[in-house]
């Protein structure tokens, strides 16, 4: 036989092997899935983070594990190596096939996952978004669990800054990148908030961007201190940025009570990770930072997922779910809002007094 004819034969054989596989067995149509008996009491909840190996989501996983122990469901985490918008699709498909009861997902895209999520929901799998919701496409998931109300984040940060600087003086904002949606939403919120007469004596003098890079954030913070010698405060609503600001005021010695501080010094506040900010908070370089506890989000998302799977909780505008208290936070009845969003509460304040407790792990 010639090589060509062997190839032709091989191709034919391969097609012969695949073709029957592609045909639908008679009678299977429509009956798919009905053979699976619903496994009561052994729910399988899967968490799909934006990407694997991300410390923020690894912290969230701890909450899932705790809930899994308490409520007795099977839990696993799976997800893409990179946080690309469509990278989560194959993992969702695989989990449908693996028979998940509920999928909790930090969505990488607000709309590219719609079709795949619909497939999962058609098979009776509950879809819960956590941390990053499908803004504008909420009908493609059952429930969204968010740490705090991002709409009021700007007001919250301005009020906190106001308390520290006695509602008087100049302050600046150090953000992440110029195109980060949450950052821009919060900056707009802060700019709107200071128009309130209550903050009439507070002056926002600058908005700078550290690109969520350590070195750039530090340099930008140093530049702020040089440019505005009478600065009273910096708000950095990013964990990388707030750390950079803390280092800048520390090195310049202008933190409240520092050796070069003029008057009350420069107070840095913002969103910070307890463990990373532990020393700066303890040493009084930074008065306080805020963040939601990712583990708490994980706990609550899985708690809601289990209740939904059991049929004891159906998300709807105005529905409530009772969540047991966590070691550090009181929970109780939580109300589901518009678009089936469940907001956990206010961000947690980390300060000199409590940071050890939160950074403990």
């Amino acid at each position: 036989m010639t090589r060509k004819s062997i190839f032709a034969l091989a191709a034919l054989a391969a097609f012969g092997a695949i073709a029957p596989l592609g045909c639908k067995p008679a009678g299977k149509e429509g009956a798919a899935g009905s053979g699976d008996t619903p496994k009561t009491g052994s729910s399988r909840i899967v968490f799909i983070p934006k990407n694997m190996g991300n410390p923020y989501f690894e912290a969230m996983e701890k909450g899932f594990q705790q809930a899994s122990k308490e409520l007795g469901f099977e839990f696993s985490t799976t997800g893409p190596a990179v946080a690309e918008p469509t990278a989560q699709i194959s993992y969702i498909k695989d989990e449908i096939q693996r028979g998940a009861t509920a999928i909790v997902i930090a969505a990488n895209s607000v709309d590219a996952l719609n079709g795949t999520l619909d497939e999962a929901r058609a098979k009776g799998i509950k879809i819960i978004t956590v941390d990053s919701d499908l803004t504008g496409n909420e009908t493609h998931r059952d429930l969204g669990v968010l740490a705090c109300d991002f709409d009021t984040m700007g007001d919250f940060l301005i009020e906190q800054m106001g308390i520290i600087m006695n509602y008087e003086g100049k302050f600046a904002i150090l953000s992440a990148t110029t195109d980060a949606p949450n950052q821009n939403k919060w900056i707009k919120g802060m700019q709107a908030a200071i128009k309130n007469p209550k903050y009439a004596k507070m002056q926002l003098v600058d908005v700078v961007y550290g690109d969520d890079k350590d070195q750039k954030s530090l340099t930008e913070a140093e530049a702020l201190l040089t440019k505005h010698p009478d600065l009273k405060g910096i708000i950095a609503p990013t964990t990388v940025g707030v750390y950079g600001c803390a280092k800048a005021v520390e090195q310049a010695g202008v933190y409240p009570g520092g050796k070069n501080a003029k008057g009350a010094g420069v107070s840095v506040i913002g969103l910070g990770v307890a463990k990373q900010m532990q020393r700066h908070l303890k040493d009084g370089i930074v008065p306080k930072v805020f963040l939601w506890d990712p583990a708490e989000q994980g706990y609550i998302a899985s708690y809601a997922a289990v209740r939904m799977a059991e049929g004891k909780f159906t998300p709807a505008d105005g529905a409530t779910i009772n969540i047991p208290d966590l070691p550090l936070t009181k929970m109780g009845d939580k109300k589901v809002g518009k678009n089936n969003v469940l907001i956990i509460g206010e961000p947690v304040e980390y300060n000199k007094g409590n940071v050890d407790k939160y950074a403990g792990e």
Partner: protein
Amino acid sequence: MISRIRSRFGPEIVAVVLLLLAFGFSAFREPRFLDAEYLFDRSTLYMEAGILALSMTFVIIAGHIDLSVTSILALVGAICTTLVSKYGLPPVAMIIVAPVVGGALGALNGLLVSKGKLPSLVVTLATMALFRGVAQILLGDHSLPMPKELVGIHKIQLPGTYFHVPMVLLAILAVIAAGVLHRTVWGRWVTALGTNAEAARHAGIPTGKILIQLFTLSGVAAGIGSMLMLSRLGVARFDHARGLELDVITAVVLGGASIFGGRGTIVGTITALGLVGVVQTGMGVAGVKAEVQVAVIGLLLIVSVLFSNFTARKRGR
């Protein structure tokens, strides 16, 4: 015996053997793998890469590379949906406009490589950033919807089977591509170009024209791929298919094509695409972590390239 197999088959036999092994292993390890409905549904994720891999096979055989294909894919999607939503282009016209726009963008690559005498690696590295950038300028961080009537082509199946439209399309295009590559003068010219560009030019082969045609073809494939992806995802975004170019090149090289040009087959590329799909699906349904999956694909590539080079040398190519 081994030497006889080696002399009978090309390097693509490595991908064929690995595919069979991977399929058998996955089926053996994980019973949920052997489910036709699931396998065919999961395969919808690989069809765009498959179409890009067909044209990439030609480009690589010619001794070149096109890193910009996925950026073309994203830009074509951005342009088409913008035309429909802002300038009233009838949705169905997208099917024609997409490959044309893709071809035009590809032709730009071809002109720069051919007339500008620039290495394709450099040219397409630049246009990869350029096209992606323009797509982002057009769409920003938002997405534009694919017109409703064009959404969900991957859900349409041949009656009575699980074969979906994109798979049928890929199969037809693969047969055409194989015919052109292995049975036409043009196909032999492309191979000659990759074997020795200088010699090909002296032999009177219009190498400059072929280069422009090759990159245009690559752009057209990206245009078709764009329509499939938009139909599957329902939206156009600037970051669609980002990083997929590496998967496409992986499939071509895994399929036995030489990255230095002059050697490669369509059968090999399609088999390798199937191999990557089966390995990823098998690991995915068995719950293997993403980082392990990435490492396994890397390992597979090294093993396969080593073996193909070995068989190719034995066959004296």
